[in-house]
């Protein structure tokens, strides 16, 4: 493996805001004045925290109804999976697949990738770091798209307000699921990918 000069072995600190190199003992950036850290503080602990919280909220998100449709007096709730099955049964399989990807595959993919990245950083599997970074870029890119289902529910609630004739209300899962998405996005942002490349474990 090639040897690279990094900020660790040249005694510098990178400001993540303005990409300016500071000396290793600097506390604030000389260019923009923000706090500089060698690596993001408590990165792995914070990421794990957000992942555990997201996993907890994933359970009600899949069991509670996403939205409650009242049509001529009859209320009917439907969970995420039932909504997907509805689309596939009524000939709109492509939309069903999109919602399945956005609301079931992507959250699970994000959480498992983050756990994999944390183990790369913790067990110092440096040979996997470049591959891990590629995975990290994918989850950073697709993160926001899992909010798609929440937005669809929101638009339906906003559109269908005909008092007794037909009415759509947001169910408990929509709240739990939006928390899952926000927590996984926070987890992605608090993970510092440079930790995967570091050769030695540093003391705090």
């Amino acid at each position: 493996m090639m040897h690279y000069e990094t900020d660790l072995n040249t005694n510098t600190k990178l400001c993540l805001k303005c990409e300016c190199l500071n000396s290793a003992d600097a506390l604030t950036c000389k260019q923009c004045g923000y706090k500089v850290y060698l690596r993001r503080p408590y990165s792995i602990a914070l990421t794990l925290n957000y992942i555990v919280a997201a996993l907890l909220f994933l359970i009600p998100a899949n069991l509670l109804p996403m939205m409650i449709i009242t049509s001529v007096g009859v209320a009917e709730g439907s969970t995420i999976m039932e909504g997907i099955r509805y689309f596939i049964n009524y000939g709109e399989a492509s939309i069903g697949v999109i919602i399945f990807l956005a609301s079931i595959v992507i959250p699970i993919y994000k959480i498992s990738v983050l756990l994999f990245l944390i183990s790369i950083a913790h067990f110092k599997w440096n040979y996997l770091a470049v591959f891990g970074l590629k995975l990290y870029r994918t989850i950073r890119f697709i993160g926001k798209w899992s909010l798609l289902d929440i937005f669809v529910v929101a638009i339906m609630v906003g559109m269908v307000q005909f008092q007794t004739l037909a009415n759509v209300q947001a169910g408990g899962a929509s709240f739990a699921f939006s928390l899952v998405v926000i927590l996984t996005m926070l987890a992605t942002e608090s993970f510092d990918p440079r930790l995967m490349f570091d050769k030695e474990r540093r003391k705090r």
Partner: protein
Amino acid sequence: MIYKSACKECGVIVEYEKNDLNHNYYCPRCRSVVYAPGERFLYIIIMALAALVSYIPTLFLPVLTLDMAGRLQASTLLDIVFTFYHDGNFIIGVLLFFTGILAPLLMLGMLLFMLIPLHFGKSLSGTHHVYHTYSILRHWAMAEVYMISILVAVIKLENIGILDIDAGFFIFIFFLICFYIAVLWFNPDDIWHNDALRN
């Protein structure tokens, strides 16, 4: 002039030409973009202004009209948000309002606030605070998710009544295109070393 920096994603020390308008610079180890030249400030300002102008009608023109057994309901983007306040589900309402409506508007305002003084050769003292907020908001502006979800909702509502897509939706798409072109053209490096880009 050679500028020394480090890769944000893997920490390798990289060197690049300051204000090089023709080349992208990549990290030798992880191949992430270290420096990509931004477009001229004037072009970004024009795009941001176009987005801002098309943004105002999207808020007040109806996006969709639903005709159900003779009863019409036209909804603007703001109407959709405000039904949540009446329902009591206001956390989702706030999320929707912030990510779909407020964050893009704030980002546009900040872009103009940063770039208009720089275009005329002045630099305001608060620029780095504004950029700090802007870089956080970039992750939370989800107007394009909002747009796609309108399309999904159209298909979902087809069985309930007759649906019309109104002018607001097309202006919204126009806004999105202008907004993302402005965001993509803007390169934050140019704020810090902008001497060559002023003209």
